[in-house]
């Protein structure tokens, strides 16, 4: 009889999901699926609302990265007004996104993923979390939490609150950065830099030691990578054009405009998940699999453009390949991106243009359709609005980073399951927790945000199920 292993809910991710491992009658793994089982319908209920509300509404999609939606919505609003925002507003928005990337990556690395690396895959699941990390290495846990707080505090200094601020608006931003806030950022930067230095040292040691196998089997496969780059091909997170690079390092497409996303991105739907499956249209579905996020951004860019981040990027490429194909390298990429963010923040807060001049333009509606893009911590985020002549939304399409990694997450889960689940699974055998944890960890590489990706409701637990061929649940693990 065939069986299916079900991991439900998947833990230490942002959202609600389950993983099913399907076994045939002989106990061999035949299929794995990463199901996103929450639904919210933001695209539908935003219809009829004024487009000026979208920054405030879509920021509510997610409590982890509301800034990404805020910026994408504000940028789409700018285009509906047909205006270019003032330089100070542009730089303030950039500062906001850099702080967001920093805090979110710190959360992913220190709070969610590092317990696996530092406490061990086989350690007690009840302690394999940030609280266990606090007990085992309080200094590191404190430093990680304070790094996230550094990013969060910048968000509050700019937007007045850490989450769900509506500070970026069509036309610019609402308020400037105060001198005191700027001084605070400069004062705290050295500590943030020291924390990333410590984390990088620690992580590289783990890569050289106990994590060697994970780099090989955690989703190492060829795919395209997509992300924003500057006109000169440097790392970018809010402006610029889209670039696709393949696993061999070849640039497949460059400086694509978000306005044309429908020409090069398709969205497939599978009946077993609320999460759509975007793909690169010229290669079709599912061959057009591509990855977004920190690793993709670092893969597509020629260099970051700041000295420390470029040194770290060179080392990442030396370790994982010029175009890193292992999904496990997302963790390393996150740390390198924090470096890039801290360097960029340091440059920005000393830029005189940041503190002077207009920060908001007022205009009437001048276009009926626009697409905005930003790089969320988890990857490229598109907002596409159509409005009537009064500025009321008639159509909303949100393409979320986690959705774009959907195909890759499924492939990663399959690869890990093939490696760690016994083949064949003896009839009636229990799957060890540590094996299932590795399957979950494959998903965590992508730091998925399922609330965003389905624009959906719910908390973040994970369920894993082992299913027989007839759909009977043979084994199940539930965490939340």
């Amino acid at each position: 009889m065939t069986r299916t292993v079900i991991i439900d809910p998947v833990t230490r991710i942002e959202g609600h999901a389950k993983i099913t491992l399907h076994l045939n009658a002989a106990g061999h793994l035949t299929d794995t699926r990463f199901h996103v089982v929450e639904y919210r319908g933001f695209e539908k209920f935003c219809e009829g609302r004024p487009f000026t509300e979208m920054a405030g509404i879509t920021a509510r999609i997610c409590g982890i990265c509301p800034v990404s939606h805020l910026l994408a919505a504000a940028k789409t609003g700018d285009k509906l007004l047909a205006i270019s925002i003032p330089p100070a507003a542009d730089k303030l928005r950039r500062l906001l996104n850099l702080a967001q990337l920093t805090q979110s990556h710190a959360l992913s690395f220190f709070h969610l993923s590092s317990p696996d690396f530092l406490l061990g895959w086989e350690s007690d699941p009840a302690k394999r979390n940030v609280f266990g990390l606090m007990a085992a290495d309080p200094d590191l846990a404190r430093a990680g939490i304070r790094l996230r707080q550094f990013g969060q505090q910048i968000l509050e200094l700019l937007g007045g609150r850490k989450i769900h601020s509506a500070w970026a608006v069509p036309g610019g931003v609402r308020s400037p950065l105060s001198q005191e806030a700027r001084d605070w950022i400069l004062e705290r930067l050295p500590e943030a830099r020291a924390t990333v230095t410590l984390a990088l040292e620690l992580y590289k040691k783990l890569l050289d030691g106990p994590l060697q196998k994970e780099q090989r089997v955690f989703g190492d496969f060829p795919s395209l990578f997509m992300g924003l780059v500057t006109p000169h091909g440097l790392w970018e997170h809010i402006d610029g054009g889209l670039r696709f690079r393949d696993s061999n390092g070849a640039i497949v497409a460059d400086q694509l405009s978000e306005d044309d996303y429908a020409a090069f991105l398709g969205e497939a739907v599978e009946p077993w998940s609320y999460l759509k499956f975007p793909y690169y249209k010229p290669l079709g579905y599912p061959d057009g699999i591509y990855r977004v996020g920190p690793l993709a951004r670092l893969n597509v860019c020629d260099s970051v453009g700041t000295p420390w981040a470029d040194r770290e990027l060179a080392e990442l490429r030396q370790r994982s390949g010029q175009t890193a194909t292992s999904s496990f390298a997302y963790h390393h990429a996150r740390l390198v991106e924090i470096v890039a963010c801290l360097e960029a923040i340091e440059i920005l807060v000393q830029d005189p243009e940041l503190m002077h001049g207009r920060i908001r333009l007022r205009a009437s509606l001048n276009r009926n359709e626009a697409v905005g893009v930003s790089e969320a911590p988890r990857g490229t985020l598109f907002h596409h609005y159509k409005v009537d002549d009064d500025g009321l939304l008639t159509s909303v399409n949100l393409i979320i980073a986690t959705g774009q990694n959907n195909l890759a997450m499924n492939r990663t889960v399959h690869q890990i399951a093939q490696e760690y689940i016994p083949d064949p699974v003896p009839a009636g055998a229990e799957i060890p927790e540590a094996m299932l944890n590795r399957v979950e960890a494959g998903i965590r590489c992508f730091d998925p945000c399922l609330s965003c990706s389905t624009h959906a409701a719910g908390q973040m637990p994970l369920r894993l199920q082992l299913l027989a061929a007839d759909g009977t649940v043979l084994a199940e693990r539930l965490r939340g």
Partner: protein
Amino acid sequence: MSVITLNVNGQDVAVPAGASLLEATRAAEANVPTLCHLEGLTPVSSCRLCLVEVEGSTKLLPACSTAAAEGMVVHTHTPRLREYRRMTVELFFAEGNHVCAVCVANTHCELQDMAVTVGMDHSRFPYQYPQRPVDATHPQFTLDHNRCILCTRCVRVCDEIEGAHVWDIGSRGGHCHIVAGLDEPWGQVQACTSCGKCVDVCPTGALFRNSDTTAEKQPNTTLPALLRTAREQRRWHNQ
């Protein structure tokens, strides 16, 4: 000027003849809540929050539109009144689509403040989630029917202060809604002078400036009283 003496919550107060019960309760610092009432506009008693108990009357009376009378004994905060006021605010929330988190009036909303005042932490009535349109046809302002509580401040300020009478109430019962002109899109109503007084006095985010985003609306509810007083006192030279 003749004076009336009455008792509010055990306290004797004196008010000028012709004063409303609401003025009498304020003289007694009784702090009776109101939503539709606005100084400078004719009272209409639509929100029912200012209901008070008057000894000798079997009905609850709206303080804003009831004249104070000699010897009245008034109670403003009995358990029954507190319960009714909370229910009234809960019904406002259940009847419309009030999403404070993304509303232009968040933190500057009288309905939101009233919920705090009456101790409403949730609605005991099921939310109706009505399908209501947004009128964004005016070049400067927007009317979101989802947030309207039918206080009619906009109707009154436009009629009594601006003199344009753009607004009215259309339909009946649960279908009641604010209409512009002869139930036309606001932007097509020629009588509208685009003065913005209706936006200034709206207690919620139902009327707002197009450029307002989340929590940016800044109401100006003192305007009608200032204008009315200025006109009565002929403060302008050409009057």
